[in-house]
């Protein structure tokens, strides 16, 4: 398989329901997170507020302009055209310009991408946005036009129910695809954001260098065999202070747990807790990474 040779995704122990894999044209798989429905509704609402606001603003401008009787037919034409283009091309134009984002999507941190991992093409952007006509505007116009006579009302209401199927399409599939996404072959994903922090294996070792007389904790291979990559990365999070509100307490809990599990004979004074964890992290990572180089990838403590 082509993806193998370029390093496939490491099998994640915890994979979210919304995570998907795309393969870039270079053959490297990347994991993307799909936007959930609430985020997409929020993005769409922002965009519609912009569209609606622009139109209302235009109307107000025209009204404020006052004496327009001479040119009012031109203004009407202009208004019709602006409304048409906003309605049909607002989304597409922004998604083309901003690499798959509209103002609403940018505000909520979403992007449109190609499901196959290829470049997002202009026709895909147009396709996904034309479908809004049947997803949004058709239901809307039906709601507005519910007539008062009973005979017609049922016709409209039944067609409304049918049309709602399109509107609610994102709720009927695992990928939260709306009809436009299906037609265009696109996903809406969360824009990834992560910052590069210092390597824990180095920073954690710093205090030990500062006081050379304090002997570093040393672990045997047997002790290090207790855990796998998953536990290592949980430990990394703890060391980075993501362990919860009370970092010190969490560290002591984790420390006690590890000491018991690996059979650490001597007690660890509270002041040494962090150093113990940091040393254990560095040792465990060295151990697991060297095994990984030999082709043994240990996912978690349950992985033998």
């Amino acid at each position, binding site marked *: 398989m082509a993806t193998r040779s370029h390093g496939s995704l490491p099998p994640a122990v915890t994979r979210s329901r919304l995570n998907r894999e795309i393969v870039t044209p270079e053959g490297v798989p990347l994991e993307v997170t799909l936007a959930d429905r609430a985020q997409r509704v929020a993005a769409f609402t922002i965009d519609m507020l912009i569209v609606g606001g622009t139109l209302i603003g235009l109307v107000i401008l025209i009204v404020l302009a006052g004496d327009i009787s001479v040119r009012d037919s031109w203004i009407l034409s202009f208004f019709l055209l602006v409304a048409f283009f906003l309605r049909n091309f607002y989304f597409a134009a922004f998604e083309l310009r901003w690499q798959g984002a509209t103002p609403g999507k940018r505000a909520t941190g979403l992007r449109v991408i190609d499901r196959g991992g290829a470049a997002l093409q202009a026709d895909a952007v147009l396709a996904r946005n034309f479908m809004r006509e049947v997803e949004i505007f058709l239901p809307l116009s039906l709601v507005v036009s519910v007539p008062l006579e009973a005979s017609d009302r049922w016709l409209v209401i039944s067609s409304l129910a049918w049309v709602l199927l399109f509107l609610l399409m994102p709720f009927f599939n695992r990928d939260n695809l709306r009809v436009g996404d299906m037609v265009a072959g696109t996903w809406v994903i969360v824009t990834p954001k992560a910052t*590069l922090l210092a390597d824990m294996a180095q920073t954690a070792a710093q205090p030990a260098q500062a006081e050379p007389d304090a002997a570093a904790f040393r672990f045997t291979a047997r002790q290090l065999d207790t855990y796998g990559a998953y536990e290592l990365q949980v430990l*990394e999070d703890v060391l980075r202070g993501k362990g919860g509100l009370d970092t010190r307490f969490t560290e002591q809990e984790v420390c006690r747990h590890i000491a018991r599990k690996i059979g650490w004979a001597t007690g660890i004074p509270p002041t040494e807790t962090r150093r113990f964890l940091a040393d254990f992290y560095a040792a465990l990572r060295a151990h697991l990474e060297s095994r990984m180089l030999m082709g043994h990838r240990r996912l978690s403590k349950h992985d033998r």
Partner: protein
Amino acid sequence: MAGIILKSVQFRRQREAVWRELEALVTQVEKRGLRSLASDQLLRLPILYRATLSSLSVARSISLDKNALDYLESLSKRAYLCVYGTRIRAQDAAWQFFAETFPRLFRLARWHIAIAGLFMALGAATGWLMTAGDPDLFYSFVPAEAAQDRGPGSSTAALRDVLYHDGQNAETALHTFATFLFTHNARIGILAFALGFAFGVPTLMLMFMNGLILGAFGALYQSRGLSVEFWAWVLPHGVTELLAVILCGGAGLVLADSLLFPGRHTRLETLALRGRQAAALVIGAVALFFIAALIEGLFRQLVQSVPVRYSVVGATFAMWALYFAVAGRAKDHGDPQPR
């Protein structure tokens, strides 16, 4: 542990500068767009992107530093979005679209378009025959806003009057009328396309109903001996407009076809592949609607002569036939067939 330097730490030390440089570029693109990059930066971007992607591959197999892995993964994705985001110059894309893509897609979807056209023709024939048999059926076929007070009850003089004054008040400016026609018709066209997702049935109904209206009007004017003048009134813009409607219907049928008969791929894959082609057809059709509205809103109001009107019919028909048959032919080879 101070004495030991992990392979993954060493690896990160060597590559980090590249990652940071890429991150700076990507952040700039995200904030201010691709255009904000200087030309040397633009050249660096794909190089840095590939280097980072290869770092990611290596890191996945040698490193367990979760933060670095997450960072590389996210940086690669952000850079991927910059490198493989949409990037076309609008004017190039537009030229290429109308010179090659649009007529080519037309030829690819010719059978779908033919079926849409057939349903409209069937509608027209039905409308014609039934209205000719029972003039009152005109009211069932033609919605009030399309009839504009015309009907079997109207006098022949009133019907003739419309052909030359279009039922519009003298005060209503032509350009307003043209704009209204364009936005209204283009909306119907986009709707016909989008309804294709419901397995094409509503699309075909829409085609049929459009035909019904046309046929009903044809029969009405025929019954008053105004046929020649009526078609001189409808067809100058009608050739272009009906073609655009049929194109949109054909595009809708392409959607329906890929849903009903996905062929070798899954439904979703087929839909994704052909849905884009169909949407591109609709874009072309919107341009046709614009041309039709210009003819209808401006030309038809200004030119009253029947022979001139008919020569426009002939000219537009010949033009479109030639355009869709010939334009972009050279690029057709090696095209994937519809199926």
